[in-house]
């Protein structure tokens, strides 16, 4: 019996001393505060958005594709930790003309670090806990959460200051799975700069700011 106990204790020592990566909910307060921790999407909030979504309006269309990228290393200068991301790519067609198409990049695995996943054009950023937060969701129950993402465009990748919110809400409409997207500008005119830090007058992406309702494909 003693031998069994000793063996179990030995196994526990090995496991617990190796398990130096405590797991926290990535969308709770305290994010990034513990060195080497894993800020995990413990409630699997990202899962509901994974897949392909399509919005069409005449000759205009928006296709979004999302995938998960888990345990990405954030080598922050203050604390180093791991976190889960949802990444996205898109195709935007306006008046029958394809303006942007980054869909093929969705399957690219850029690497295990934050700077790698940032190469994707849509990247999860935070969880908006309440419907009253900008952009407000009028139709949502007060405590319904939404995923806030950051949006980019290949031709504008080097332009600094084009801050925005790309917020997702998954819902069902008569049994059909849908995705509402609020795409709002946080750009402060006069605070947009090119790669050489010269101010430039750019106030929009090819995809217009606004709301879109997409259907799961």
């Amino acid at each position: 019996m003693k031998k069994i106990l000793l063996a179990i204790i030995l196994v526990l020592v090995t496991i617990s001393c190796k398990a130096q990566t405590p797991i926290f909910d990535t969308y709770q307060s305290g994010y990034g505060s513990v060195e080497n921790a894993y800020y995990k999407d413990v409630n699997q909030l990202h899962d509901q958005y994974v897949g392909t979504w399509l919005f069409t309006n005449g000759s205009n269309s928006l296709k979004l594709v999302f995938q998960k990228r888990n345990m990405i290393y954030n080598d922050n200068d203050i604390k180093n930790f791991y976190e889960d991301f949802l990444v996205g790519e898109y195709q935007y067609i306006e008046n029958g003309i394809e303006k942007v198409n980054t869909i093929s990049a969705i399957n690219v695995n850029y690497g295990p670090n934050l700077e790698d996943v940032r190469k994707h054009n849509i990247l999860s950023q935070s969880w908006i806990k309440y419907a009253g937060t900008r952009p407000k969701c009028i139709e949502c129950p007060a405590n319904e959460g939404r995923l806030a993402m950051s949006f980019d465009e290949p031709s504008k990748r080097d332009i600094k200051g084009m801050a925005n919110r790309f917020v997702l809400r998954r819902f069902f409409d008569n049994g059909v799975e849908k995705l509402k997207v609020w795409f709002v500008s946080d750009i402060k005119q006069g605070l947009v700069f090119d790669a050489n830090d010269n101010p430039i007058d750019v106030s929009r992406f090819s995809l217009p700011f606004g709301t879109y309702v997409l259907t799961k494909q």
Partner: protein
Amino acid sequence: MNRKTKKIFLTLALASLLLVSSCQNDYYEENGQQGTVKITEKRFDELIVNIKFRALFEAIPKKKHSFSTALQARTAMEDQYDFTIVDVPIKVATADNLTSYTMLITREDQSNSYFENLVIQEDVDNNKQAVILKYKPIEVSEEIAHDSFDFTGTIEMQKIALNTNSFGYTGTDVCTVTWIMCDKYGTEHVAGPRCTQTYTKTMKVFCDTGTPTGGNNSGGSGGDGGAGSSSGGSGGDGGGPGSVIPDEEVVTSPITPGLVSPNGQVIAKKPCQELNKLTNLAANKAALNNLKAKTGLDKENGYNQTKNPLTGILNSPVQCQANPANPNEILMPTGLAFIGAFHTHPIDSDGWVPMFSDGDLLYLFMVAQRHNNNGQPKDYSEYFLTLTVPEGTFAIKIKDWVKFSKAMNNTKYWNSKKELTALRRKYDNRVPTDNIIGFKKDLLDTFKDLDMGAGLYEANTDFSGWTEVTLNPNATLFNDDPINIPCN
């Protein structure tokens, strides 16, 4: 579960607990002192229960009765010693061969023309010393780096006769003081508890005999943790590497009034002074009052502030134009003569956060960086952004340009679109109509976590004064609300 199984279960549970706790100690970082002389800060009440400090302190003769408690000790001091120890942290300098304690003192007839420190120390051979250092500034101005100040003026030293029957001063041949300095970022300043690389500097001072052995001191700079010093004068560099201080040398890391709050926090005076300067102008007060009346609107409003590049005088603020691309937003230009702006956020009930956004921080950075100051050195404490919301008027200011610019340029904190995820995550956990205290804390936590070198300030209702909003150093699990420290 039989007895045997229970026993095994308990043993395993205990073993697991022990193992888990023994392996969880690596989440904390020690802020170790790498310097040769260590500076720490302690409160008087903490130190007086320390036998070594108490014996040293009691070696100073008293005029009247002795004290029995720490509180009595402080309140009775004016009678006993002609001075009172101010209730701010005491700086403890620990070298290999001695320990010194520097205390800010004040007197009944204290004027603003000087400030004084009581320094008591004991070396390894039990040699005790007590001196009063009187700092007479010609000019004390804040130094942005390390929340500190520059000192120009003279220093006088009076040596207290120890172990005699009554309080009094004695002459001394040693008219020098050794300061513990810090050379962080290459800017000479007095060391504070945050200094990781200390060194010493010996200065000649005026002795109590009145024989001037030292000249004016100028151009020194205060240091981490809120201390200040002077440098230059006729004193020369001394000390150098090594933590053994020369015999009989008085060792100190000076403390100046006004920079250290009763909570032991550093108050950066200059941003406060600049804010007061700003709202002393009637046109600016009128602009802020006007914005107060517009906090219920669903769009931003604001004024831009410029400074005359030739005279340095602030021009009257000019109302911001709406952004043609987004009528809810105003244009806040940077560059040229622009030094700041006053603005509102659209109403909270529309989902807007009643506190500074990451875009606002970016504005403060850009307005400071792009200001055309005619090639003159910039005083980064003058740049500002105010925010008026129904809950009050706030300002963000740069306290340490080196830290601020480093944090603003850190691409690990900011993505290429200039979004600060750390701040957005905090705000997104709240309802915008929540109590503003939470949003203040979110911003201050971000300043602290990212070591941003920025400060948050709050105006009083008639804009006649400002307070600095800081995290509460005595926060508990039940109350961690930020506190307001007056900008005096």
